[in-house]
C-alpha cells in the first residue's frame, strides 16, 4: 500500500510540471506580446514595461522565474488589474467559488447517488424511467441554458428567488447557482450509480446472497453499496473539473465575483498572466484532488490494500 501511495504521489509531480510548462509555453508562443494591441508607446516606456514584466529575459529564464514564483505562491502581476498580483485576486475570489463548488458537489453526490440507487432497485418501473429520463436531460442540456432559463422562470416570472448574487442575501441567493451548478453532475452521478448498481445486483455474489435468504435491504447495505459506489470514486476527478468549468458560467450568469468570473474577464481583456495563473491554479487543485481520489481508491480495494 505504501508503495502504491508513493508511486502515485511521485507520478503526479511530472504531470504537474508538464501542465505548467504547456500553459506557460502556450502564452509565450502567442504571436506578438501582450501589449501589442494597445496604443503605441514610446520605446523607453515599452522597455520599462518589458523589464517590469521580465519580458526581456529569455524564455527558459522566464520559466524558471515563474516556477520559483509559483513555489512561493506568487503568480506574477496581473496585466489588467494594476497593483493586484494574480495570487491576490485568486486568494480574494476563491473562497466564494470554493463554497459554491463544495455545496454543488455535496448536492450532486447526495441527489445523484440516491436517484441512481432508487432507479437501479426499481429497474424498469416508473421511478426508474423518470430518473433515467431526467438524467438524460441533465447531461444533454448545458449549464448555460439551464442557468438563464431558471433565472427567467424562478426569478423573473415567479419571483421566488433573487435573479443575481447582489440582488439577494442569505440562503435564497445560493439556491439557483448551487442547484444549476449541480444539475449536470447529479445527472452523470445518477446514471453511473444506476448502471453500476445494476451490474452489482446481477453479479454472482449477489445471487449467492439471495440464495442465502438475505432480504433486499441487507443485500444492498451489506453486499451491494460498496462495490456499486466504487466506479463513482474514479468519476470524482472529472466531476470536480466539471464543477469548476460550470462555475465559470454560473458566476457569469449570476454576477458572482468568483474565480470563474475573473477568469472570463481576464480572457476577454486578454490578461495573460491572470488567465495563466487561474488555469495553473485550477490544474493544481484538480491534480491534487485526483491524487487524493486515487489514494482513496487504493485504500478501499482489499486487493490493493493487502499487498
Amino acid at each position: 500500500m505504501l508503495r502504491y501511495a508513493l508511486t502515485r504521489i511521485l507520478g503526479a509531480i511530472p504531470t504537474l510540471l508538464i501542465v505548467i510548462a504547456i500553459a506557460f509555453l502556450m502564452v509565450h508562443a502567442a504571436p506578438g506580446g501582450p501589449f501589442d494591441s494597445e496604443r503605441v508607446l514610446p520605446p523607453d516606456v515599452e522597455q520599462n514595461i518589458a523589464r517590469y514584466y521580465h519580458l526581456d529575459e529569455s524564455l527558459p529564464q522566464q520559466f524558471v522565474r515563474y516556477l520559483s514564483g509559483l513555489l512561493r505562491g506568487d503568480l506574477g502581476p496581473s496585466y489588467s488589474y494594476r497593483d493586484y498580483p494574480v495570487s491576490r485576486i485568486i486568494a480574494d475570489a476563491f473562497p466564494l467559488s470554493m463554497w459554491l463548488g463544495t455545496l454543488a458537489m455535496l448536492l450532486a453526490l447526495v441527489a445523484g447517488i440516491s436517484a441512481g440507487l432508487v432507479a437501479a432497485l426499481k429497474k424498469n418501473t416508473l421511478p426508474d424511467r423518470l430518473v433515467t429520463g431526467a438524467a438524460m436531460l441533465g447531461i444533454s442540456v448545458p449549464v448555460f441554458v439551464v442557468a438563464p432559463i431558471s433565472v427567467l422562470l424562478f426569478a423573473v416570472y415567479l419571483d421566488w428567488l433573487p435573479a443575481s448574487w447582489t440582488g439577494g442575501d442569505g440562503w435564497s441567493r445560493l439556491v439557483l447557482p448551487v442547484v444549476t451548478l449541480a444539475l449536470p453532475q447529479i445527472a452523470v452521478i445518477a446514471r453511473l450509480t444506476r448502471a453500476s448498481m445494476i451490474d452489482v445486483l446481477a453479479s454472482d455474489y449477489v445471487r449467492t446472497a439471495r440464495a442465502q435468504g438475505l432480504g433486499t435491504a441487507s443485500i444492498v447495505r451489506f453486499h451491494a453499496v460498496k462495490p456499486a459506489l466504487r466506479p463513482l470514486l474514479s468519476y470524482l476527478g472529472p466531476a470536480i473539473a466539471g464543477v469548476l468549468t460550470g462555475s465559470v458560467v454560473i458566476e457569469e450568469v449570476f454576477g458572482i465575483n468568483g474565480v470563474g468570473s475573473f477568469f472570463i474577464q481576464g480572457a476577454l481583456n486578454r490578461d495573460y498572466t491572470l488567465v495563466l495563473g487561474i488555469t495553473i491554479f485550477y490544474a493544481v487543485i484538480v491534480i491534487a484532488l485526483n491524487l487524493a481520489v486515487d489514494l482513496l481508491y487504493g485504500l478501499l480495494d482489499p486487493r490493493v490494500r493487502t499487498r
Partner: protein
Amino acid sequence: MSLLAVENLSIRYPDADEAAVKSIGFTLTRGQSLGIVGETGSGKTQTAMALMGLTPDNATVNGSIRVDGTELRGAPQHVLNAFRARRMAMVFQDPMAALNPYVRIGKQLSRILLEHDLCDSGEARVRTLEMLARVGLPDPERQFRAWPHQLSGGMRQRVMIGAALLGEPDLLIADEPTTALDVTVQAQILALLRRLRRDSDTALLLITHDLGVIAGSCERVLVMDRGEVVEEGDVGRVFREPAHARTRALLDAAPRPDAAARAAPIAADAENVLDVDSLTVSFAERRANARQRLTALRSLTVTVSRGETLAIVGESGSGKTSLARAIVGLLPPDAGRIVITGNAETRLVQHRRAATHRALQLVFQDPLSSLNPAMTVDEIVAEPLRVHAPDLDAGQRMKRRDAMLERVGLDRALGNRYPHELSGGQAQRVAIARALILEPRILICDEATAALDGTVQQSILDLLMAEQRRSGLAIVFITHDLAVVRQISHRVLVMYMGRAVELAANDALFSYPRHPYTKALLDAVPGLEPGSEQQEPEIFGEASSPLAPPPGCAFHPRCKHAVAVCSNELPGTRKLDSDLVACHRAAELDLRK
C-alpha cells in the same frame, strides 16, 4: 412425505422458441441424494435456479415446487427467504465469482446466521469458525479474517459449501460445484461433500454434466435432455442398463480412463518432427498493480515423432499452455531450443520461416474466440492459402477450401456464415479446417475439446484421429482430461509447476504410474462404476503459487510419500523401463493399484 416434490415444472423465456424446461417432475426424500445430468441447454441449471426461486424476472415458471408440503413456486419473497439457508441451500459453479470480493469471509458467512436470527453476533462468530474447520480449511481464524482473493479456488468452494450448511438445511443443491476446479481439487471437494452428508441427513441434489461425478456421489439419477427428463432411476441400474437412447449416448461419450487406447500404431522408423530441448519460459504477470516475473516452464525437454500423439496433462498452472504457446512462437523462450521438422525455430512466430508456418499449426480451446467475428467461414478457412499459396487462382483456392470443409464434416452451406452463427462444435471444425488446409506436419491442440459437450467432444476427437491416420500428422494434445488422454495418445507427458514429472507410454502410465503426482491425477478421475465409493483422495491441497515454488521437489508439500530429501533437493530425471520420471523415491515406490 417427500422433502422435495416437483410437478409439471416448466420454465420459458420470452424470446426462446422452446421452453427451457418442459413439464418435469421428480421427488426427493429426506437424506437422499439425486443427481441431475445433461449437456449444455438441457435445462438442469434452470431447474436448480427455479427450486431456489432465483429464476430471472423475465422467465415464466409454471407447475409446482413443494418443500415439506409448502408451495414455493410463485411464493412471496419473505416466504422464500425463510426457506433459503434454513431449509434449502445452494452451492454455485464458479467459486471465484460467488463470494463478494469486498467483504471478509467471516463477515459474509456470519451474516447468514444473523440474517435468519439464528444467534447473536458472538455466537455467529463461533459457529462460523466451527464451520470453516468442518469444511476442512486450515487455520479457521485466519480464513475468517481473509478476503476472498486471498483464497484458492478449492478453498473458496469449501467456504461456499460451509456457507450453504451454516443454516443446517434439509436440502443442499450443488450446481456443477466442481466444474471450475482441477480434477485433484474436485476429488477433494466431492470427498468433503460425501463426508458431510454421512454426518447429517441433508438431502443432496447434484447437478453436473459429468457422469463420473454422479456415479460416486448419488443414489438416484435424472437424465435431462432439451428441457425434458428422459430417464430416471437408481444410479446402478441407469448406468448398467440405460433405457433411453440419450442416456446411452451420454454414457458412450463419457470419457473413461479405463477404456482401451485407440490411437493407431506409429511406424517404427518414424522421424522426429518436433524437438523441444531444455525450454525455459517466463513472463511478467500483473497482479493488483504489481508486476512479477512468473516462470511458467523450467528446462523442459520432449520430442514428438511423425504420426504420434503426445498428450500433455497437468493441473491449471502446470505450464502446459505456456509450452504450447512457446512451441508455436507466441511466447519468447528465456533459454532452450525448439526444432521443427529439422529446423531450429526458437524465435517468435513472426520471425519464423514460411515453411515452419505451414508445418506447425494450433487449435485453441475456445473455438468462438479463435475465429475472427468479421470474417465468414469461407474467408477464415481460405486465409492460410491466401498467405502461403498466393499464386493459386480464385477457382483453385475455392476448390481446396471446399474440399477441406468437407473433410472436417462441414456443410458447404455454412460457408457464408459468420462465427457467431455457428454452434460450438461447428466452430471448432472451422478452426481445425483452417489449421489443416496447409497440410501441416504438427498440430498443437490446446484444450481443443474442453469447451465442448461430451458427444461433440467425441466427434472432434474422432476427426483428429482420422486426420492422423490419413496424413501421419503429429499431434500435441494439451488437456486436463485423463480420459481423453487414455483414448487418443501414444505417449503422455505429466507436468507439475513448469516441470516434466513423468513421461511414459500410454499403457504404461495408466497401468503403472511412477510418479506420486501421476498416481494422484489418475485416482482423482471419478470412475463410472456406480456406488464404488471412492477412498479419500491421494493428494492434499492445491498447487503452490508459481510465483513462489517450494524448494526441492515442487510437489512435496502435497505428496504423501514425501521424505526429508524431497524438500531440499530437486529430483533429477531418471529412466525406469520406458519411463522418464522425476521423483526421489520412484524406484522404491510401487504405485500400482
